[in-house]
């Protein structure tokens, strides 16, 4: 891979982007947790397109649903914390992309698909989930955690960070 140099300003921009996405994930998780009775069932049952049977099956199977709910809540919280702190950044960003991809595939904004869950805008194929997936891709392949984040400390301690 050719060497790419980032200026401090560019790295700072990446750190800010990472923290913003982290905040979003963290609050999505915490809000579901504090609400107490949150469940993914409503969202999953709305699923359309070719993966709909899989998502609906998750919602209709009570024990599966419980696991899905817990993984959602704690996945969001842990990914959010990791992104904010820049800790295991690449793993966290990849996990976030995976989670968002599942959300996207459950209710993709494709031509001719309509959902009862209200969304705050109008989308054609690209929606905010997809944009956030793209943003996390940027975070996953750049080393903002090595610039400002726990990864910098971890790297120095384990000696795996190369300068």
């Amino acid at each position, binding site marked *: 891979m050719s060497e790419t*140099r980032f200026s*401090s300003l560019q790295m700072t921009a990446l*750190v800010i982007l990472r923290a913003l996405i982290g905040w979003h994930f963290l609050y999505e998780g915490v809000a579901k947790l*504090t609400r107490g009775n949150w469940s993914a069932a409503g969202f999953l049952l709305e699923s359309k397109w070719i993966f709909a049977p899989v998502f609906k099956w998750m919602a209709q199977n009570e024990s599966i649903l419980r696991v899905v709910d817990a993984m959602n809540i704690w996945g969001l919280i842990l990914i959010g914390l990791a992104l*904010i702190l820049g800790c295991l950044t690449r793993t966290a960003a990849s996990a976030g992309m995976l989670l968002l991809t599942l959300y996207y595939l459950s209710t993709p904004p494709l031509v001719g698909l309509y959902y009862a869950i209200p969304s705050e805008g109008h989308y054609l194929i690209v929606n905010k989930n997809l944009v956030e997936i793209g943003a996390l891709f940027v975070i996953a392949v750049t080393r903002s955690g090595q610039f400002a984040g726990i990864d910098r400390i971890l790297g120095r*301690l384990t000696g795996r960070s190369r*300068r």
Partner: protein
Amino acid sequence: MTEEKKKPEQSGSEKKGLGRRDFLQGLATVPVLGAFALALSRDLSYERKRKAQAFSHARKRTGDVKEVKIALLGAGAQGQVLMDACLKLPGVRFTAVCDIWTEYNQRRAARMLDKFGHRVNAYEDYRELLAEEKGLDGVLIATPDFWHAEQTVACLEAGLNVYCEKEMSNTLEGARKMVEAARRTGKLLQIGHQRRSNPRYLHCYEKLIRETGLLGRITSARGQWNRAVQEDLGWPQRYEIPESVLHKYGFNSMHQFRNWRWYRGLGGGPIVDLGSHQIDIFSWFLGANPAAVIANGGTDYYAKTTHEWHDTVMAVYEYETRDGIVRAAYQTLTTNSSEGYFENFLGDQGTLHISESAGRGGVYREPQAPQWDEWVRQGYLLAPEKAGQATRADAVLDVRETIAPDRHDIPVIFNDPYHMPHLENFFDAIRGEADLTCPAETGYETAVAVLKVNASIEAGRRLVFDPREFHI
């Protein structure tokens, strides 16, 4: 991490090991977590405040609650609803249950109560219950309407306090006797218009209508209860009640026993079963009894032989309130469930939409009315939601249209069984700790208002109420 890319920007920290700069930059985003924690704590405390407001209506139960001994008369569908709600209340003990369907309703209720640790004696005839059961404080009556008057009067005269389901009676003579018996005996008689104790309704009445008057001058009201088509109620053949028993208790057949609400002389049809709840709210919120009513209705869909009362009714009431005339339209359909059930109060400054159905309700400010920010700050209303959110984004507003009003949610959450606060109010009144929210006189006024709908349909014209009709 094993990223391969190089970052040359930290020219000052090229040395191995953890430097001061590494440490600071490594923890550079930790303050974000602090900001998040601060924002979250404000968010949570706002939610807590909202919830506290919602539950401030619920009475706090501390220490011992004086036990109230009660019997259930009529263990059908409604009796079960009351029983389930009572089982969630502290200090309520069932000692007897009475139902003429001994093999089914009676047995089911007794078994259920036994499961919850209430040892009950079961009776077929309420007179036997009254003769045998001593030490009762109250009775819940959930029998068919045509039994209410006789049973209520007998229970009151036996020295018992009575919670009687609505409709108070299928005849005004019956209802009148109940009021008189309550006065004569000095015992409590609560009529089962349970919305009168519902914290959401109490909030709307006390804060939004009386205290703030934020609807302005109320000019009209609207209410409906629309139900989907339903099959007649059936019964398991092996549990059929013997004909002699049915006759003894005023029923011609098992079909009539199960579907008494549709039969003349037994019930009053949907306008009485469903409508009386909501017409009761009209009178309560408007602070007046109706001055006139005109109604139209009939059995348009079901078989007239088994549905003697109207399956479809539309009525328009006129109220003469302190602020002026209010016209109130009410309808009940049993052939279509569109928009379910709700009551609307429409004033020149706002609209109140309220339903016993807990997820529904809202207050809408008219565009030209004064702002409601003060009421939002005081917690009487929740913050408004964006106007026109529900309308299609591509819909073009005609210049003659008024823009859609903001919607404010009602801040009171109520997730208990619907009848629970009303029963609790009855038990608290027995304990001497509360006044009834729907005493006999109030139930009577509503019975007068509601039964006139059927009379107006028969007469085919507008009927005027004599104000004296409402009082005994």
